[in-house]
């Protein structure tokens, strides 16, 4: 019984989780899997991270989408940058906008409108989702490598946070539309990535509660990344006792056994709280290489409705 990731018709997939769980690798693999199924994909990184590396793009990602292999484009967006652009647009005087943004007191202005930078990020995503060329969509699917849990909450909560303050004007209208689309399971899927480690699992469960119960966002089954493979069975464990305990191969096997046992316990805790996860293997060789991402993409394609 394996979980199913909803990717076939969704337009927006947001990948989040604790820092260091492999969000960028999962985002890149999802993009590759969806592109292989014929969807035109835009992979977007919010902030500065490792998505470019995972997609094999040699130059830093920016607001202008660049080609990142067959059927995949990649871009990056920074909330502060988005705020700067917004002020420049409102001001129409680039020089003065710069001066203002550089002044510390601008933080006070920004704090008066919490969620504004995040809203601007969501609005940019929206622009990409709506982009059309010659009557057809430019991107079928936008996959977002969101910031680590603590910082992806402000991003996904922006329609609520800012919406509570901004009740009239263009922002309010745009917010309402974005909020609706984020909450629509036919349009959006939020994927929580974790590793089989205590802190990561705990944070994922907390994040799921926030996103699902409080914000009403459609969360897909969790993704359990970097799960060490089962290498040795119970019979092996007994056999190991009869071998030279100091032999490096035996030490390695004991280590792998203990690591697998711990990972299984954490996987069980995750399953109890959030249901059966989609499990991705721990890769001993470079997980962000093209081969590593390819391996993960194959697993994700099988675990999703892409092939159906």
């Amino acid at each position: 019984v394996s979980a199913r990731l909803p990717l076939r018709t969704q337009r927006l997939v947001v990948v989040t989780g604790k820092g260091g769980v492999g969000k960028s690798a999962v985002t890149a693999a999802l993009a590759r899997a969806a592109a292989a199924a014929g969807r035109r994909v835009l992979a977007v990184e919010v902030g500065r991270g490792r998505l470019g590396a995972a997609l094999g793009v040699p130059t830093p990602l920016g607001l202008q989408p660049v080609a990142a292999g067959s059927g995949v484009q990649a871009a990056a967006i920074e909330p502060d940058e988005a705020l700067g652009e917004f002020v420049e647009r409102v001001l129409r005087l680039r020089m003065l906008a710069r001066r203002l943004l550089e002044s510390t007191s601008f933080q006070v202005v920004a704090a008066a409108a919490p969620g504004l930078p995040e809203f601007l990020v969501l609005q940019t995503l929206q622009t990409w989702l709506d982009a059309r060329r010659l009557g057809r969509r430019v991107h079928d699917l936008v996959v977002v490598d969101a910031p680590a849990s603590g910082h992806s909450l402000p991003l996904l909560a922006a329609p609520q946070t800012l919406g509570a303050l901004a009740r009239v004007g263009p922002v309010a209208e745009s917010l309402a539309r974005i909020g609706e689309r984020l909450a629509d399971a036919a349009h959006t899927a939020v994927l929580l990535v974790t590793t089989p480690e205590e802190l990561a699992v705990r944070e994922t469960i907390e994040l799921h509660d926030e996103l699902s119960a409080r914000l009403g966002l459609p969360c897909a089954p969790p993704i359990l990344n970097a799960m060490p493979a089962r290498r040795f069975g119970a019979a092996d464990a007994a056999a190991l006792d009869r071998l030279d305990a100091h032999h490096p191969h035996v030490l390695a096997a004991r280590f792998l056994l203990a690591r697998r046992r711990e990972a299984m316990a954490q996987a069980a805790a995750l399953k109890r709280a959030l249901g059966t996860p989609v499990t991705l293997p721990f890769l001993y060789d470079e997980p962000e290489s093209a081969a590593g991402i390819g391996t993960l993409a194959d697993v994700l394609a099988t675990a999703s409705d892409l092939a159906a």
Partner: protein
Amino acid sequence: MTLPELIADRRVLLCVGSGGVGKTTTAAAIAAAAARRGRVVAVLTVDPAQRLKDALDLRALDGKPRRVPLGRIPGRLDAMLLDVKRTFDELVRGLATTPEQARVVLENRLYQNLSSTLAGTAEYMAVETVYRLAEEGEWDLLVVDTPPARHAVDFLDAPRRLLALLDSRAFAILKDPSTILGGAGSRLAQWVLSGVIRGLERFTGIGLVGEIADFIRAIEGLTEALRARVAAVGGLLRSDASRLVLVTAPEPRIAAETAELATALDGVGLAVHGVIVNRALPRTLYGPGAPDPGPVGAASPALAARLARGFADLRTLAARQAAVVAPLLATARAPLLAEVPLLASAPGSLDDLTVIGRHLFPDEIVGGSAARGRGV
């Protein structure tokens, strides 16, 4: 400088690094080692894993230090949770001259947003607590597990930035927009800033002007006191009484973040005194120089093959790790203080801390009084 030297006679040891690298465990293991050497130590931690929390008996965020039962040791170890959310309000209460002044600030919506969203504020408050405890003088040594910083130096650089924000000249821009364009004529400046604010108001539908004015009125009376405090906290961190070590893990993302952190720390005048690498596979066993041990005798061919494969996987991982750590040390221009091996499961007991302590302090005779007083 070696790790034993770092804990011998300083008052504050900051463990800095990305989230999830085992900073808390490292801080606790270092603190336990210092206590075994006879020092009166407190380890201050932000968000420990449940099992470690249990081991250290950290039940509640009540700001009270709890004695860690290490048995008969020459020193003493207390553990305490740092509450990064509450203390900013406490600071405002402490610095306000009247309860009414504190109330006006605390109830201001802009203050509430700023105190939780101004980059680095939460991190700064952790450091503020450290300053307070150092002032109290109950402990010889405070080992601090710092909050994972979003932007590299938020938690340490926050004093300077908070100061910059509270600096009356910065606020003056909002009070008197002519300062933003120094010399360009106040009418133009006034027009520009009010243009910005009106533009923002129109787009967001929020009454910004009134809110900002309220906030400035509320916080103004506190600015001087806050400035003095912030300067004192920054002073402690840069003084000879404080030492800073980077905690990292041999993974590309984490090492890259740590290298960035090292550069940023350097940029704000904070020296890194060493690097501790967690979750490393032992080089002697799996490192590129380790000899190939050959197949295990007496194992069935099938098992022997799987054993060889498992060993080969760990060697691959070890090679990847080595390639990641070397450039980090070059960037940080700091010595590698210790490598702590990847444990099969997350550390969750005082015994685990002792095991980690052996890797951090390989020369120490653990548990006894042999090392007592060295360098103190």
